[in-house]
């Protein structure tokens, strides 16, 4: 119910602000919503998001880099590319993005770089507010929960 409410609000508010990033962000979020259920739709949103990002004047922000990292990392709307994802995540982290630490740790696990994975995981866990991002990751054996090795 809450989720529906949120979706409604988000949908409405998607049209309230005319900022490119916001539009990109909203598309990205919609994409993540439909990622599990309707991959095709989700891809459409991701592609739109990607397209909007390219139109942004200041692309090199922590949030944009994070978004790009996620998209490359998961192959959302674009071809999966771990190197690019790594690049973007690192960029985001440089710019102060904290969420990106978890994402990067996840990536490194998937890339098999467990040491780096641990480093960034520890870093991320120093921020309690971010912890839930890393909930996918099992800390002991550095695997992503729900994902078979």
């Amino acid at each position, binding site marked *: 119910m*809450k989720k529906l409410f*949120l979706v409604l*609000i988000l949908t409405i*508010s998607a049209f*309230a*602000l005319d*900022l490119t*990033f*916001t539009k990109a*962000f*909203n598309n990205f*979020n919609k994409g*993540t919503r439909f990622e599990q259920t309707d991959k095709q739709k989700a891809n459409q949103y991701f592609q739109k998001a990607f397209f909007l990002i390219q139109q*942004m004047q*200041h692309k*090199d*922000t*922590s*949030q*944009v880099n*994070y978004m790009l990292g996620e998209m490359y990392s998961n192959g959302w709307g674009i071809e999966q590319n771990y190197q690019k994802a790594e690049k973007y995540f690192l960029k*985001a982290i*440089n*710019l*102060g*993005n*904290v*969420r*990106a630490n978890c994402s990067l740790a996840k990536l490194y696990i998937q890339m098999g770089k467990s040491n780096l994975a641990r480093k960034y995981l520890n870093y991320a866990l120093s*921020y309690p*507010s*971010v912890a*839930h*991002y890393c909930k996918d990751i099992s800390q002991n054996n550095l695997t992503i929960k729900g994902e078979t090795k």
Partner: protein
Amino acid sequence: MKLSLNKFIELAIFIPALILFGFSSFFFYQNFQNYQKIQKTQKYITLTKKLENILVALGQERGTSSIYFVSKGKYPHSREVVTKKRANMSKAINALKQFINQNPKYYNETENIISLTNQLPGIRKKIDSFSNIKYKEWFFGYYTVLENEIINQIYQLSKKFPLKLQALYRAKIPFEKATAYTGIIRGFVSYYITADLPLSQDDYKGVLLKYYHDTNILPIAQFKGTPVYNEFNSKKFKNLESNIKSIMFYIEQANMEYYNNGEFNGYPIDAFDYFHEMTKRITYFKKTTDYINTDINSNIDIIKTNATKNFIIYTILFFISIILLLIGIYVNKLLKTHINELSTLISSITPIITGKKTKIDVASPEGMHKAIQTVSEAIEITQEAIKKSEESTKAKSLFLANMSHEIRTPLNGILGFLELLKATEANEEQQDYISTIELSAKNLLQIVNNILDVSKIESQKISIEEIDFRALDEFENTIEIFAAPTAQKNIEYAADISPDIPTVLKGDILKIKEILTNLINNSMKFTQKNGSITVRIKNNGIKDNIAEIYFEVEDTGIGMSEEQKAKVFEAFTQADESVTRRYGGTGLGLTIVKNYIEMMNGQIKVESELNKGTKFFFTLKLPVIDKTPRYQASLYKDKTFAILKTQTDSLRKNITFKYFSYFGIDKITFNNANEIESLINTEKIESIILFYQESDKKEIENILNKELNIPVIMIASYAFKEAIDKLSPEINIYDPVTPTKTFNSTESLKETKQLIQSSKEETPIYKIKALVAEDNPINMKLITTTLKNLGVETDTANNGLEAFNKYSMYPDKYDVIFMDVQMPIMDGIETTQEIIEYEEEEELPHTPIIAVTANVLKGDKERFLGSGMDDYISKPINKNELHRVLEQIAKHRYSKTVHIIQKEENNNELKEAQETPRNEEKSIKEKKIILATESSFLANYLKITLKENFEIATNLKELSKLATKDNLNIILLEEDFTGANLEQLISSIKKENPDTIVIAITEKTIKNADAIIEDLNPEEIEKTIQKVSK
């Protein structure tokens, strides 16, 4: 309260001045303080501005430092931006520090702030390390603290402002707070957006919710009508606000999601965009504060201008009050001095009243009262004194008048009998004694007359007459009086008179003559032998029908010193005491002259130098009655005179030439008799002019010996009469040469020429004896010569009395008396009356008296004829007139009361008169009209009304005498003539002379009358006479 005047004036002046001074000083000081206050306020505004600048820079530095810090400097451009913002902040802080340095007294207010800003470099360094300090430590622990401190201080400063501005000033605070809060949110949240982290719940409540407010809560309504209000209500701002609302909503949502679900999915706002939008918001708030600042400034400006204005006004007032105070002091002093002077003055009058000097102080009330008393008493006493002196003067004058009269009567007796004595046969010695006695008596008479005149003047019994008089003629007459005496004394006597003086002027001619006589007399007295006296009378022009005539008497006499000049007009003063002894006189003459002239609105002046001479002169303004010039200029412009060369210069010569010029007479000079002979042949010479005293005597003789047939005019002083007579020139002009003499001489040239050229011409000869009474020797000569030329034997008398005496001695001797009207001693009219009286008393036949007069004005005719004169001729003597008169005399036409009326004086009439005798001669018998009446009324009436000449018979004897057989007699017989029966009378007349025509004046019918005149209508009478004479 008894205040002295001085004290009162002091108070009246100083109290208001002091009040004004006090008020103006007070306001001056107050305004000065105000002025200073404004200066201070302006300083505070500057200080506030400096603080506000720091605020702005601070917000920006803090905000940009957030992104810088979270991204460890890696956020795009963040490093540059932060550096820039830090530079701005430092600049603002330095500006403040500079201000405090220049105005150290504000250090207290900014002490805290300054010490905080001193920490800034350290903080910046820590931020730059990204690790030595926590975010919130510097964000809230430093920047926000400083921010609060500044806002607080700004608020504190508002109290320093004038009340009027405080409200305005404080209106800024909400906006400044809004700016600060928005700044906080901007900075703080952008950190978390960049970090992509949710806020902690504490921070969410303690910062986000605390510091984010809707602009609705701001007091924008008070700015209604201003641009600020319009800005906040603009579409742009409303869009901005709705955007920010959306942004804040998103941020809140993102955080709420995390708090509720434990899930945070990032902020849908780019940090940059977020920062940007918040900055925009702040801009609006800044606009408001700027607007308010501008408002405050303009208010301050207005106040300042007003204050400056007031300051100037009060400064001026202040100085005015000082000036007034000074004036007051000065006026007070002045008044005091005047009051003191007045007191002194009145104190000095007190001796008049009390005999001793008492001090009076006008300032005090009693003093004033006393002063008034003193002055009125003094006036009373003075008035008394004046009255007494007036009375005494009056008494003195009366006494003088009476005494003069008493003295004059016997004096006149003495003079009268002296005259008679002179006429008796006395030997030479006796005649000499008589002359001496006469002279003394005359002098005494003059003295007495003068005294009388002076006393008359003093008692103001003299008035100025307004008589019409023939100006030039009268002046010349007066001047002529002294011709003989000056010649006797060998004094050159000249008269320079403007010939163009208007013919008739109006004024008191008798007094003018007296003045001239007096002055010339004086000159004569004080001028020695070989000196000269010049009388100048100039026409200075006519303006508004008033002629300005300048009179001057100049002599080369003994003169006067400055001292003598100053006193010369004072009564009884002569130049010095010896004058009376040596020269005689009373010392009253000039006083009288001065008084007369002043009464005629003139002023007499004297110039004199000892032993050089004296000049008296004055100007009179006389109304013009006949403005034609007495003599026309260039009257003789066709005439030329030949003048014998002169060897010396003289007044006489120069003045004569002046007159010649005026008359337009050309002059040719010749050297000797031969020259003039040839000159006569080439030029038309009217006359030869010889100046006896100035030319060579031999030549003069030569010229006169030659038979040149041109009249010679000899000009010289009377002193040379004897010598000149021997030479017998045709015409003589004796000093003084006057315009009239020049005119007469030139006129008579025609006659003399006739005399020379046609000596064969028959001139009527009248074998009659005439007595000529004339005081002027020239006129005398003229008449006697003319009469002599007509064969008339003449005897002369120099005045009326002499004439009377000569007449009364041999009443039958003279056929006619020519009586000059204006003569001294006894004038013509008096003499005539005396003669007629004498004739009546002695029952003598009447000797005709002909008036010879220069005056022929209105009323003169009647006056002469009315006084008993039979006829008159005017001066200058016209030959034709003389003929007429002599003829009448020859024909015994004059009897006692016959007045021949001359209606006109012009030649036409005379020509007629000349002609009628000729006509009458042609007819066999002359017509003669005789009026027989006893009534003088009828006689006078007919005299006036009838055109014809007639004679009057008042009794039968006269009637028979008149009605001679050799005339055709027309007798106008009046009814009551001799009481006789008219018819009988007429028949007896007609028996004697059958030709006689008798016209009866009666209402009855008279059978033997040739005509009857019933009413005295002049036309009727004329008609009747005409009818019967045919």
